[in-house]
């Protein structure tokens, strides 16, 4: 613990505390977890950039069907490779202290596979396919029906895709979102 603490100065910790939803202790804990992914590389440079492959070794991300999307959304170079700051940002958004709006914002980006700021039919299709896993398949008609029902429920302005406002509305009504969209450090 002594070695980790010496890697960060007090101002840096304060800086991170101001920019994320973590306390200083949690930031150090996050760094410890980050270092566990690639001990030698992070030992040299505390803000080292790790490849997406390495980041996805983190237990919760490895089994998550959207793991690669999460890495891409939080990576500052948008190719999935994350520095420690990106990782800290990720954990901060997934923590308990982050407000629902921030989580909704990032969830929207994670589910927006084609990056067009709307959750269209193709985005929803990919979300469904990833959720049901590899071994199981639904027929094409089934998926179409499901997507149509979702759009009927949630697409308030009837333009065939979910905008952020509509997505946020669904999230607001769901009482389980804060519990599901959470990774404990």
């Amino acid at each position: 613990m002594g070695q980790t603490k010496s890697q960060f100065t007090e101002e840096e910790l304060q800086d991170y505390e101001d920019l994320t939803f973590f306390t200083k202790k949690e930031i150090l804990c996050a760094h410890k977890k980050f270092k566990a992914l690639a001990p030698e590389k992070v030992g040299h440079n505390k803000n080292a950039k790790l490849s997406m492959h390495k980041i996805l070794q983190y237990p919760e991300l490895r089994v998550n069907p959207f793991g690669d999307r999460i890495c891409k959304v939080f990576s500052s170079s948008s190719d999935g490779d994350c520095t420690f700051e990106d990782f800290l940002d990720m954990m901060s958004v997934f923590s308990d202290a982050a407000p629902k709006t921030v989580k909704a914002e990032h969830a929207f980006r994670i589910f927006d596979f084609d990056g067009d700021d709307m959750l269209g039919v193709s985005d929803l299709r990919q979300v469904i396919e990833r959720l049901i896993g590899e071994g199981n398949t639904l027929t094409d008609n089934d998926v179409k029906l499901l997507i149509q029902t979702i759009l009927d429920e949630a697409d308030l302005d009837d333009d065939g895709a979910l905008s952020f406002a509509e997505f946020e509305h669904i999230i607001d009504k769901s009482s389980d979102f804060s519990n599901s969209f959470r990774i404990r450090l």
Partner: protein
Amino acid sequence: CASEKNKCPFAFSSENFVIKITIKRCFYQSRKMNRRRTNLSSVFNIDTDTGGASMSLSEREIHSQDNLLHMDFSERNTCFADEFKLWGTQSGNRTLIQKTINFMPSRFKRQLSLDSRISGPNHDNDIEEITQQIEQNNQLMADNPLSRHLRIERIKSLPQTINIKREISAKLSTSARNRTDSKSISYWQRFKYAYRILRTRLGAFLANILTNLEIWYGSMRNIEGHFGSGVSAYFKFLRWLFISYCIVAVLCFGFIVLPQLLLNKHHGGFKPTTMFKFLDIFTGEGYLTTTVLFYGGYSNETISIIPKNTYNLPMGYFLTMISVYLITFVIMSVSMARSYRRTFIESSGITSTYADKIFCAWDFGISNEKMARLAHKSLFNELREMLNELEKPKLDKTFIQKFWNIALKISSHFLVLFMLAGLGVGMWTMLKYFEEIEDVTRSFSYLYLPISINCIMLVMQMVFGYISKMEGYKNPRTRVHITLMRNFLLEVCWETSIGQEIYRLVIVDFVISIVASLSLVFNQTLLFIGLLYSPILPVIVIIKMILMFYILKAILIKYCKPPAKLWKSTQTHTLYLVMSFLSLLGVLVANGYIMTQVKVSKSCGPFRNFDFMYEIITLNIAKLTKDHLFWRIVVSITRPAFVGGILLGIVIVYYLRSKSRARIGMVKLLKEMLYMEARDKEFLLGHIMKLAQQSDSHAE
């Protein structure tokens, strides 16, 4: 636009009639622009690429959202038209359509926040824009610590990378320092800000301490990763109760037990009346009768060990009890109300079960391969079920079927109530029977009652589970909730013992319940009933809970599989809170009745001098006697029916208010969407007309 190709979808003839119709058609087409993206992009021969939208200098000047929306229309048209031409001739970062859409008013607002996760040449633009946007807000830009704090809060919730946030923060600090035109804020405003800062700082400080102290953190994470958030909800509730009992124990110990112990020491040690037998731990009789464990062991003196300081033990006893009950009641009712509002009231109205399932169903806390596979499987099954429901036509149940369903449900309710009544009668007769036995095995006989109670409860739990399966509730969650509530009713029937009985129940319940699933609410009910008569009870319950946690956890990990169906934990949590609240309410009413109406025993305990317990307050502090006018008013106001009516009124008002709050939120959202829709329509129509005119002039 598209100067290389002669094709242009906006080539109109100069006749007005045709223009109008084509404009209309284009308007409707614009709504489907997203889908037609690929067609038009091929027409305009633009490379698709990802990246930030570039904005011209003129666009950056017109920065704040308000300006944009109320801007002079012709001015915007010129900027946009120029940009449009520019994108048409060079390969831009995004497709032409995407850029057009991004300029629509409804998207423009979000553009500023969304678009800059990516670093690159447009990185600086976005920082500039966000900085300027925040600078509009005078509140955040004053040069004092309050504003600094508010600024930090604002920046925290921006959805940007840490680097960008850092730069924005630095820029804002420098510009705040350079501000000379900050007007002084009034005292009231300063007070409000200072209060807010203090509260946030206090919250952060407490959070820091609490994360250090968060007990059982590792175990909870383990359980959550392996079994999902449904199971961990039970353990979280257990931990919450545990912490509240710790506080209760500390209060009771400090104010009641400790003074009595000191007093005993002062008087020269504790003089037991009988010898200690091992069985006494289970029965609470004999040796333990006159210890500080029970009410009888407390004297009614005013202690003065430290000279010149007196401590009135009876007063301390009474006031501590009252405050503990009230504080717990308040905390419990507030959490229950908040949880209930969140789960049931806010999410009523238009339900979105399918969207909810897709977006909120995956528990991001799962960290284990097996659990993940199970989660996938269960989601697949649930989606399959939902699809089946959608696909089959809705058969109206025949009248006979509906009738049969309702009859089944009503009859099972009656069956349960009948069984409970029967059990109550059985228990009562058993109590009476045992009172008449007087023999050597007296100590064992005390145990018959608690053991039988617990065994019967076990059996009844299984019976209830079977009955609810028979009823055929569709939703398995409803089934479990109803079983939980029936078990709760079961426990309510047994609130007949006090003091020693409670102690015995606590101990025996622990022993037996290692085998079966435990009921936390039962525990709590017992604790609060017995608290008045046995101040050390919280300590015992705490020890019990610690052991419970570890034993349950071990059983869970060793013998249980992860649940096949994913569990929505928030509704169950609300149910736990509601049951705890109801039991606490019942206990309060019962104890209140005892305090005010039941005569105190004259030979032991701290209240021997009084007729009723509450008189210690009225006679000592307020010196009120029975005939005082004030007292008569208080008595008439606190008539049960009156109080009950007021409480009911409060509950109804709260419910209606939360409902209206949820509706107001929905109305706001829809209003904003309508507004944006109208603005989008204006924008697109204007540009279409402009382009039509331009192409007209080209054609001529």
